[in-house]
């Protein structure tokens, strides 16, 4: 094989994987900031005050 083939595979994998990972990370970050994770919902449902750092006190609407 030559370097072109490997380069083509690297470009495709890094492109798709990198973009996918970036989007997934952005999603997780937004969910955390907005307090919209399932663990947050569980705390809300239990009636306990969410004392974890960075959690919104007003919770879900």
């Amino acid at each position, binding site marked *: 094989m*030559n370097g072109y*083939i490997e380069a*083509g*595979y690297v470009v*495709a994998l890094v*492109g*798709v994987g990198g973009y996918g990972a970036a*989007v997934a990370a952005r999603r997780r970050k*937004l969910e955390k900031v907005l307090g919209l994770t399932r663990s947050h919902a569980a705390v809300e449902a239990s009636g306990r005050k969410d004392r974890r750092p960075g959690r919104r006190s007003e919770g879900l609407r």
Partner: protein
Amino acid sequence: MNPIVSRRASLVTGAVGLTALVGIAATVWLGLWVTPPAVGMGNLVRLLYIHPPVAWVCYLAFGVATAASLAYLWPRTRSRSWDRLAGASAELGVVFAALTLVTGSIWGYPTWGTWWTWDARLTTTALLAVLYVGYLAIRKVPGSPHVVARRSAVVAVLAFVDVPVNYLSVYWWKTLHQTGTVLDPSKQLKVHGIMAWTLLLGFVSFTLAYAWILVQRYRVAALEDHRDSDGLTSAIAERIAEGAGSPTRGTPSAAPAPTVSTSPAAASLGGNGAGSLARGVSSELDGASSVVAK
């Protein structure tokens, strides 16, 4: 928008993502180490296990963006969800169009002796990428959500005209890029079993990867809308509370605080208390934002 994704939906999305990951890994393994070289093309055929699948996903993404845009433009199906889906899919399409151009160029240099030529297929692919970059830019132009969604949808539909032109360009014009080979019965191509399966696996895996990323990207768009409407609601409520709650400088404290009742809902609450007015406006905007978020 449902603020929290159910466990079942998460499991399904996760399964799709994992399958895509395994499929792409298997495609790489089969493509690089297992499949034999092709007669004539030699080892360069290995690049064709990823280039056509990536190009197919590019078409698919723009197709989904256009279908969602049409659904938004059609009054009976109009919903912000379609707009979000169109935006998410178009962004993916641009990424895959760029990857199509780069992987094709990497294959083209050792095969044709040039990285780039103004061939009809290559040119229309580049044009496709540029058109949808323009579409994404138009989505960022300020305006009310409905206006932005409507003009974006029109642009998406117009830009899609380039997709069939791109596909048929190799038949309409004399191009360096070859016409379809594997599915063309007139060529009577004999594809080795493992080569055909690897190519098929590449198509399926990259399609699943597209589906997984699309779900993630759509969710990001929905969360951003949620955040923006949430922020707007609290900002307005705070401003009204400020105006209604604290007497202005020089105003006697016994006098009723000046309030601007802009909505029947807020007016019907009665009383000038900042809390009640803020709650009224807030609940109304909550209703509006939930309508927007649908």
